């Protein structure tokens, strides 16, 4: 008969009583060295959770009484006998090979999440978002950017009519629903909001040497709209925070990882938008090099102000090489 040594606590007072535990047909029995009378507890009321590696384990005999084992091996044997199952968690947590596999799979699973699952789900979700929501979000974003003094929307800009004409061509060519907002900020810049609003700064319009360059920029932004890049970014950064937050038990590390992955995703988006622009420019008979040359001037201009923001884009050199290639 299996019997194990340990301590019994009745849950009514704080005394520890040396005792031994045995499993009988319908109950578990606690017997004491010093007292003749033992105690019996119905088997079906005994509760135990799987032991943790490095601890000795204990079981709850009912709502209050508890038996603590002297050794972890005893607990495992008892647990197996009483519940007819093994401590699979305990064995996982104490096997060296399992841990090695664990570490490797952790990196593997994280990589799969970052590289495939999150981008793929963001991609499929991003096309499902209702237009109304996109419009609402875009309005809020534009307002926030203005409140934060990143830019000021210019009503009735001298370039408005001209840019609208160019945008008509883009709309016709790509079939996207696009709107134009001209703004002024400190840098030459252009970006697309989720609802198809393209924001372009007067600084960028001034920087352009001809319409073909502006068309290149507009095609690039239309590419962001086509592939819902804005939504993909918002969805995936939210998902990463949710996945990594609990893993690393705090915001610090998940923010670090977020920053790294963010960079990676955003580079992919830029490449995709460049490819989109290149295809359409070729169709229209404009050389994609036009987009490359305005990019180059933007980079030079921006570098003198702040080298920071360009880091989210693939190196401009790489992009220009891509646009120049046939």
């Amino acid at each position, binding site marked *: 008969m299996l019997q194990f040594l340990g301590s019994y606590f009745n849950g009514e*007072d*704080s005394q520890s009583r040396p005792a031994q535990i045995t499993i009988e047909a319908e109950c578990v029995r606690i017997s004491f060295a010093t007292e003749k009378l033992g105690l019996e507890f119905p088997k079906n009321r005994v509760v135990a959770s799987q032991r*943790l590696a490095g601890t000795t384990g204990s079981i709850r005999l009912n709502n209050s009484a*508890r038996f*603590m084992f002297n050794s972890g091996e005893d607990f495992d044997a008892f647990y197996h006998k009483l519940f007819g199952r093994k401590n699979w968690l305990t064995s996982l947590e104490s096997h060296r090979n399992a841990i090695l596999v664990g570490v490797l799979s*952790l990196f593997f699973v994280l990589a799969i999440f970052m590289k495939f699952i999150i981008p793929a789900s963001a991609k499929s979700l991003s096309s499902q978002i209702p237009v109304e929501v996109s419009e*609402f979000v875009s309005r809020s974003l534009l307002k926030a950017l203005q409140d934060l003094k990143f830019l000021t929307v210019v009503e009735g800009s001298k370039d408005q009519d001209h840019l609208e004409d160019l945008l008509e061509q883009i709309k016709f060519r790509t079939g996207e629903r696009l709107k134009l907002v001209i703004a002024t900020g400190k840098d030459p810049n252009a970006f697309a909001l989720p609802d198809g609003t393209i924001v372009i700064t007067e600084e960028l319009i001034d920087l352009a040497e001809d319409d073909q360059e502006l068309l290149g920029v507009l095609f690039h932004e239309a590419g962001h709209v086509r592939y819902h890049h804005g939504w993909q970014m918002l969805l995936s950064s939210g998902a990463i925070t949710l996945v990594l937050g609990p893993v690393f*038990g705090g915001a610090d*590390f998940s923010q670090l990882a977020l920053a790294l992955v963010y960079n990676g995703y955003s580079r992919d988006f830029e490449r995709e938008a460049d490819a989109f622009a290149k295809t359409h420019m070729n169709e229209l008979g404009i050389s994609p090099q036009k987009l490359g040359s305005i990019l180059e001037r933007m980079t030079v201009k921006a570098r003198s102000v702040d080298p920071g923001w360009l880091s989210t884009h693939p190196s401009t050199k790489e992009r220009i090489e891509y646009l120049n290639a046939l």
Partner: protein
Amino acid sequence: MINFKLRAFLQTHSPGSGAIHLDTNEIQENKLASSPIQFTGQGSTYFKIWIMNTLLTLITLGIYSAWAKVRTKKYFYENTWLEKNNFQYDADPIAILKGRLIIGVPALLYFFGGHISIWLPFVSIFLVLILTPWLVVKSLSFNLSQTSHRGIKFGFTHKVNDSYKVHIKAALISIFTFGILYPKAYFQITRFKYSGFRFGKVNFDFRALETDFFKTYYGFIGIYLIAIFLFVLGIMGLYVVSGFLEIIPMLVGNAEYAKDSQSGLNFGLIELSVLFYFVSIYLIIKAFFAKFTYLIANGTSVGLLNVKCNLKMKNYLTLEAKNLFLMIFTLGLYFPYAKIKASQFILESISVQAPANSFDEFTQGQDSGSINNVAEAATDFWDVDIGV
């Protein structure tokens, strides 16, 4: 002696009576023995548990996190020993999981809300603020009722409406004094929490001093301001130095090189001083919480048991600095080791002074039963920490 026994009797036989103050002289007469807390957790063992927790949480898309949480807590509790017995933690992961599913909505609003409307996160923060006093009571009740030592359960005695009174009062105190009296508010909330603890039928007594909270709080504000000042000074210094360095290549007649080397230097050094700034802030925050743990532990007694904390701040901060360094260098893999080492340092600085055999004399009294229902477990989402 008779007096002592009478007090001990009163202590254990009047439910809800709270602790009785004893003068030090009286306790010394009865031979106080000091029992240090021992922590037997090991980095290598906890690393394995942590890896499995993390992996299973990811694979099950977060469902396992409830089990992971309970197993982590169990590991730390069961490796904390006082008077030859360890602490036990018995929460049911399924209750926690159900609770999380129910209460996950405000959290999702917070995470994703910002992208949909800038107002949604504010709504959820507001909700959390309104619910905090309730959460504090429910979460402490839940976690303490799952915790036991020598078969005796802990519990929380204070009620939700008292929690609202204390929190509202504390909020008003700090708002109307523009934060100057914030330590007073923090003290009142801390006292509310710890004086509500119960072990068996003995209530905890919280006797930390409000003046110590003031001194500590403003001491740390001072240190924080000095850190910021040094940081700003350092950055300014760097600009001056890099200005000098810029001139040198110009003198040799290579202006293009000058531009590159200057921006490169600026970038590296500024990053470095930002890193230095974050490391100091990290350590200041660690020291801040350790100091309050010290104050709270030293101000706590449980019946005849007096808690003492003897934290060596310098050694502790050296440890935390080493931990941070190793965590950065191992891309976070050192995290479980760091957590074990820091917990061990803090826990083992604590001891309990008690008259002989008093550990055997606690009784459970009327147990309100195990609180393990979903509504209570839900509050674990915010995990109001019970400290030591």
